[in-house]
């Protein structure tokens, strides 16, 4: 139980990233739960990995864009 909770806490950080990347709140939470379950079971789909990479890329891009005058 504690291990499962730790995974949920770990992947909860991706919820705002996924939302910023265009996902709805419900969709972002659902994907986070699938990720946590997949990690617990040792299976994470390439699609999920891609989602989180895109979300992180968006976060980086948001900072790197110039500040509007």
């Amino acid at each position, binding site marked *: 139980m504690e291990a499962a909770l730790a995974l949920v806490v770990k992947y909860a*950080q991706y919820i705002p990233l996924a939302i910023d990347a265009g996902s709805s709140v419900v969709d972002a939470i659902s994907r986070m739960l699938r990720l946590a379950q997949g990690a617990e079971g040792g299976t994470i789909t390439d699609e999920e990995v891609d989602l989180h*990479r895109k979300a*992180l*890329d968006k976060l980086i*891009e948001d*900072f*790197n864009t110039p*500040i509007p005058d």
Partner: protein
Amino acid sequence: MKRLLLVVAVAVGLGGCAQIQRVQDAVVAVTKSYTNPVTRADLDNAEGGVQLIFTGLNTYKRACVQGIADKNCRANIAAIQVYTRKVPPVLKELRRSVDSGDQVNAISVYNGLMTIIRDIRNEAYIRDVKIGA
């Protein structure tokens, strides 16, 4: 009243220190030199550290755009962006190397990413930009 304010200030300061320490701990874990093969877990940890840093930086940038950050925020952001703009291609190459099992390249690229992260941290520190806040 003054004593109460002092207690509150210390409590807030300690709370802020805890937050900054968590970021520093994550970044210290990310910036450790690596001579062993770069695993998926290592990549995951590195991306986690990158995420923490850029979350803090974006918070600062939003405050700057809203006009509620320090007067030097635009210059600070421009200076830090010199280093943050190096991250995307390096991160892309690290992911490719780890995914394909190209360990020779992965180690070199991983160490390169750690150097960039250190530069970002140092620039933020010099400019008093609290990326942990």
